């Protein structure tokens, strides 16, 4: 792997390579470049996972023609496919080094145990939702149980927007979650369940089941579970599997002809 990356950097296949490097005992994402080629010896796969593809979109937004290489687990690969479809990245400018990945419904086998959750505590099992459950388990609860369990989880929300911020396929310039007519502002917890449902609706046809949202949630809301269900419905109703093909999702939230206009998010951010 390290030799290949070195070769790519040297012969100009890629201008930079996003991977991980151990820095003071912490595996951190790192951008390898030709000028510091010796650093590539320290390239690791990294037990902690960051959204490298999101960093890549930020780089591409600043310099569209740059050739980017990155380490890609299966989830990264699916995210890349979605980003290609929505014109956030140009597939011709991206090279990947594929590495092992985590188990998911969209992939039968995998050996990255990164997203395996610790066992849920007794109180959470009693009134909330165990993060290790599958959508079928939730459907096993009665209707009012389901509502109160989800509401318990949503009530913990501290509105950090981490689920959105970390999401590799969240790139809209304007976010529905920040539309005050849609979701009320200024209160904790936020308006529930609409805050989470609006995001869930947006995840339809987008979510690539990487689980980073749940991982970034300070209060352990089982978001991945919610979006897995969304994926399941999208697959049943629209016959679309996100991140696997090269066509845009048939689901769009506004109407048949209106599509989201994806723009690099940081244009809005840096303009402030």
């Amino acid at each position, binding site marked *: 792997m390290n030799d290949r990356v070195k070769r790519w950097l040297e012969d100009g296949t890629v201008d930079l390579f996003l991977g991980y490097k151990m820095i003071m005992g912490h595996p951190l994402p790192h951008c390898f470049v030709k000028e510091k080629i010796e650093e590539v010896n320290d390239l690791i796969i990294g037990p902690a996972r960051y959204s490298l593809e999101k960093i890549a979109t930020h780089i591409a937004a600043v310099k569209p023609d740059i050739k980017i290489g990155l380490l890609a687990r299966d989830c990264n690969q699916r995210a890349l496919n979605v980003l290609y479809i929505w014109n956030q990245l140009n597939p011709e400018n991206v090279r990947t080094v594929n590495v092992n990945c985590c188990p998911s419904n969209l992939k039968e086998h995998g050996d990255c145990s990164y997203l395996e959750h610790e066992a849920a505590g007794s109180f959470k099992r009693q009134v909330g939702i165990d993060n290790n459950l599958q959508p079928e388990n939730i459907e096993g609860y009665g209707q009012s149980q389901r509502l109160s369990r989800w509401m318990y989880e949503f009530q913990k929300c501290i509105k950090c927007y981490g689920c959105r911020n970390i999401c590799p396929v969240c790139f809209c310039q304007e976010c*529905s979650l920040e539309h005050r007519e*849609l979701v009320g502002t200024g209160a904790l917890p936020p308006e529930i*369940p*609409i805050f989470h*449902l609006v995001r869930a*609706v947006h995840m339809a046809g987008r979510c690539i089941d990487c689980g980073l949202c749940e991982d970034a949630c300070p209060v352990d809301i089982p978001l991945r579970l919610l979006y897995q269900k969304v994926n399941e419905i999208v697959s049943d109703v629209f016959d679309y599997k996100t991140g696997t093909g090269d066509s845009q999702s048939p689901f769009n*939230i*506004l*109407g048949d002809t209106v599509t989201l206009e994806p723009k690099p998010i940081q244009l809005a951010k840096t303009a402030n």
Partner: protein
Amino acid sequence: MKEDRFEPKILAFVCNWCAYGAADLAGVSRMQYPPNVRAIRVMCSATVSPHHILRALQDGADGVLVGG
């Protein structure tokens, strides 16, 4: 507040060309239907975003009807 019978609040998104016409006709024909329904006329039922429906439920609508 004393309530003998629960009167649901229902929000209906009705298509200008279809269901709204029907509602109009029902009104003109003096047909009786429950007064619980508040209708919002939209140009096409496809313009009803899931967000609108979620917002209605969040704001306390007991049911949402989409009439295409």
